[in-house]
């Protein structure tokens, strides 16, 4: 039967919490932390990732490596860490793979649900704020080491520019003007971006420094995967502009890396 009582809310998370709490591991995580023993939080070990975003003159590039790690083992070589959210935004995740994927999926559904019920897109600022609540609702899990830290980027149609938001474990939201990188290789990627970034760079320049930053991160950080020329696995790159979110084709990414390697 159709339940028309929920008419007023455009918040999918609220509806799931009330009607299907079993589908949300995250919202129950505060119970989990009170009953379970809390191990020594070793959050870093779960962040085997490098994801980053760079603002350029027509929008923003968002990218991520493809490797998931289990301790010292490679868990997965082709995992996706960057997910388009709506026509003008994307989320990249670092942290424990399961909760990360769940958060990205829930966030995408939430934004689309809002758009369809309200008949207009949720503003980029609104999306960034909502993501803050999602991260905070994962705090219980985060305390047990199952942390999810997203990087959020999009093209702000009102302000006519690309924007980047980073988060801390309690849902704190911080805007970055130029670029940012998170995950275990985040610091290494940021070092490259810091040296190579200049304001108002072109799309091609942005793609090049993103590829190089991911290369350096993979070079320094064992938990970040580099381009795999044998298996043909390459980092995923997306551009977000006024026209929308577009994935850079794999052949183009391969070219970027072949060019980069030839310069080394």
């Amino acid at each position, binding site marked *: *039967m*159709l*339940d*028309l009582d929920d008419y007023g809310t455009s918040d*999918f998370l609220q*509806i*799931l919490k009330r009607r299907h709490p079993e589908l949300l591991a995250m919202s129950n995580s505060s119970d989990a932390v009170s009953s379970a023993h809390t191990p020594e939080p070793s959050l870093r070990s779960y962040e085997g990732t490098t994801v980053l975003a760079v603002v350029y003159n027509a929008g923003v590039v968002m990218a991520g490596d493809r490797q998931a790690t289990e301790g010292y083992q490679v868990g997965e070589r082709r995992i996706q860490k960057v997910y388009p959210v709506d026509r003008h935004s994307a989320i990249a995740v670092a942290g424990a793979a399961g909760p990360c994927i769940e958060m990205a999926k*829930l966030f995408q559904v939430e934004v689309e*649900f809002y758009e*369809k019920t309200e008949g207009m897109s949720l503003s980029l600022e609104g999306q960034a704020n909502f993501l803050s609540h999602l991260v905070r609702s994962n705090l219980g899990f985060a305390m047990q080491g199952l942390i999810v830290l997203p990087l959020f980027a999009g093209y702000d149609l009102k302000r006519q520019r690309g924007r980047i938001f980073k988060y801390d474990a309690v849902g704190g939201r911080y805007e970055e003007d130029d670029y940012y990188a998170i995950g275990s290789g985040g610091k290494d990627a940021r070092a490259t971006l810091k040296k190579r970034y200049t304001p108002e760079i072109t799309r091609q320049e942005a793609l090049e420094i993103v590829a190089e930053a991911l290369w350096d991160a993979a070079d320094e950080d064992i938990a970040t995967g580099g381009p795999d020329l044998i298996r043909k696995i390459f980092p995923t790159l997306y551009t977000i502009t006024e026209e929308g979110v577009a994935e850079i084709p794999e052949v183009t990414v391969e070219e970027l890396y072949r060019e980069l390697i030839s310069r080394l």
Partner: protein
Amino acid sequence: MSTPYYVSPEQIRQDKEDFVRRGITQAKEVVVLEFRDGLLMVAENPRKTTFKISEIYDRIALAAAGRIAEYEALRVAGIRESEIKGFRYYREDVTAKWLTNLYSQHMGAVAQAWDAKPLEIELLVCEVGTTDTSTNSGIQRNQIYHVAFDGIYSEEEKYAVIGGRATTITEILEQNYTDGLEMSAALRLITETFQTVEADTENDYEITPETIEVACLEHTAERRKFRRLSTDEVSNLWRLGASL
């Protein structure tokens, strides 16, 4: 104690149907028509923000004739149930057939309740077919379900019409419809049909790109197949259709 009146079930049903018919006969029409790349949906609706056609889920759209407020509640409920199902299982598991059953059960229950007014609304639940043979739904065709106020539904083929003059419009479409139309030709067919019907009435109402609402489900699109056409896009198609 007084003896309650006996009213036969047939009478109750007839009364409710008469009540709904009075409302629906005043409702402007919505046409859903199969064209080369999917389903084209056109409504006579000069308003710019109150829509009669809307996106429900990836491949599914909903069109209605009747009371906007009642449509609105059903629309949002449909999106909600679809998103829940898609989140719980998989996006492809959300189908027009399933959604039609949900609407049908709800509208039937309301129509049968002794203390509730039946919904003064008719629905078209549409799902665009797929060219992708790897999907697990097993259904490749476009689907159109017509749900009446009492929840009784039927599956339509090629095109379907709801609203006051649905019968007349269907008769005209029967004569003029051909398979595999381009979108502009399909739009032209529908608008000319609207115009023919309007010409029969007393008032000289003219159909223009400003007085219609147009949306489509295209199987060529990415995940979200629904697209609402702006007045500019409709004008361009209109010119294209006129030059055919």
